[in-house]
């Protein structure tokens, strides 16, 4: 399996990371060498093995849904790259 330029561009789109043409080429080489390395896993027969999704195989604990941080709106908005009053601002999405 090889990752060609077209695939790199597709992944870049899915990842929401724009990528220049020349960098895409280098990336395709890097990804190919990494995937060659990853494909070693195909040597193993795992048809009867159950997937391990988390090492803590317990039911996740629930906690009370109560508010414990109050009056932090201003602090949170301070980190925003663009804001207007109490809102985050993004480029126009609705015409």
């Amino acid at each position, binding site marked *: 399996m090889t990752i060609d330029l077209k695939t790199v561009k597709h992944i870049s789109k899915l990842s929401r990371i*724009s990528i220049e043409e020349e960098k895409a080429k280098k990336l395709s080489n890097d990804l190919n060498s*990494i995937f060659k390395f990853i494909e070693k896993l195909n040597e193993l027969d795992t048809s009867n093995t*159950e997937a391990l999704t988390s090492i803590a195989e317990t039911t996740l*604990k629930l906690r009370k849904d109560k508010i414990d941080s109050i009056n932090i709106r201003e602090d949170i908005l301070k980190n925003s790259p663009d804001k207007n009053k109490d809102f985050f601002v993004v480029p126009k999405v609705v015409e």
Partner: protein
Amino acid sequence: MSEITNFKLCDLVDKIKKKELSSKEITEAFINRSQKSTILNSYISDNFDDAINRAKEFDSKPNLNKKIPGIPMAVKDLFCTKNLRTTAGSKILENFIPTYESTVTQNILDQGGIIIGKLNCDEFAMGSSNETSYYGIVQNPISENLVPGGSSGGSSSALAAKLTPATIGTDTGGSIRQPASFTGTVGLKPTYGSCSRYGIVAFASSLDQAGPMTHDVKDCALLLEVMSSYDAKDSTSVDFVRGNYLNDLSDNIKGKKIGIPKEYRVDGMPKEIERLWEKGIKIIKDNGGDIIDISLPNTNYALPTYYIVAPAEASSNLARYDGVKYGFRSKGENLIDMYEKTRSEGFGDEVKRRIMIGTYVLSSGYYDAYYLKAQKVRRLIKNDFDEAYKKVDAILTPSTPSSAFKIGEKLNDPVSMYLNDIFTVPINLAGLPAISLPGGHDINGFPLGLQVIGKAFDEQTILNIAYSIEKNIGYKNNINDWWIK
């Protein structure tokens, strides 16, 4: 002042408790040395002025019942610190000021610690040499132009250079143990679920663990006690009875069964590492431990598994960096264009590479072939350890397959860089605790480490075995302060 920075964590705690030194004296000593050591680039941000004020405040009404009363400490810049910039080594978080404190740093503060600064690391902890940080490469105090390891490279550098008496790192695939090994210091990755992940900038959530990095095993036991706690804010935090790691520290390992996995003898490993391993085995035998040959047959599949699981989780965790609520934003013609440019300019090459690997292995049509396959192999790797622990109490291996390498040496070959973590990655996949301690030097005089791997939640046993090895191996760091003019 200079001699204060030579004291280890436990010695400093002792001196504060006996009132031989004040918090201000200690804090100023480490700050002064840090200011003379900017060449190392260990820090991303400092908190010096605030720290001195806090030290004075401590001295005015010292509470000596704390575990680390009035002790200054610089921490990896992956821990969110309230009102103190937290960058994760990335441009995308260059101006991020957390509104909350990570549980682990809160535990440090609650036990009397004083944060003196935030230490450099690979961007989002993705790297094994601290060369991927947006804030520049970090020098290893052992020798000029040598990498300090990664991702906790600022932590290992600052600790070995005595800019902080102890520090904390995070370890997703070896990011505490490998830098500890490269700098002749001690680093412990606790059992998954031991230290809260709340407030740690997430990389791969099923693998990430915070842990102590110190000059010796005693300090390591103390700092682990401070850090480890059950935390409702981390859904994978485990509510078990934490040990009195320092109080129960003992070099008596009589009757302990220690496994030696044959799969860790890899081709091309330097002879000094082989010899160091033998030395460790001999010390264990001399101290009454039993050495038992074991097999961890799926060891060779750990790295390929890791390079599916970790990027997959990272691609999901890093989806939050969209330039809207916090962090860097680039201008775009529309919303999507803004996202794409923000992420392209805000992330470095290694991070982008891993996000794209992760996106690919999770994408439609490839999920079963890669991600699901990796999760199944992860089970096999964990089963290997479960089998081994029916026969042994702990496992002894080298920490890394080589000593520290030169800056730039492996930067253009991602796979060769990844191979650094061959002995540390399986432990994260299995969620186990492991400690790296220095044991010797290679032909260049660069430090080499031994790794003791334990059963889940049995940090005490690996601390004790490491303590016993440390007492007998006679390791000493030769650091000549070359960077101080």
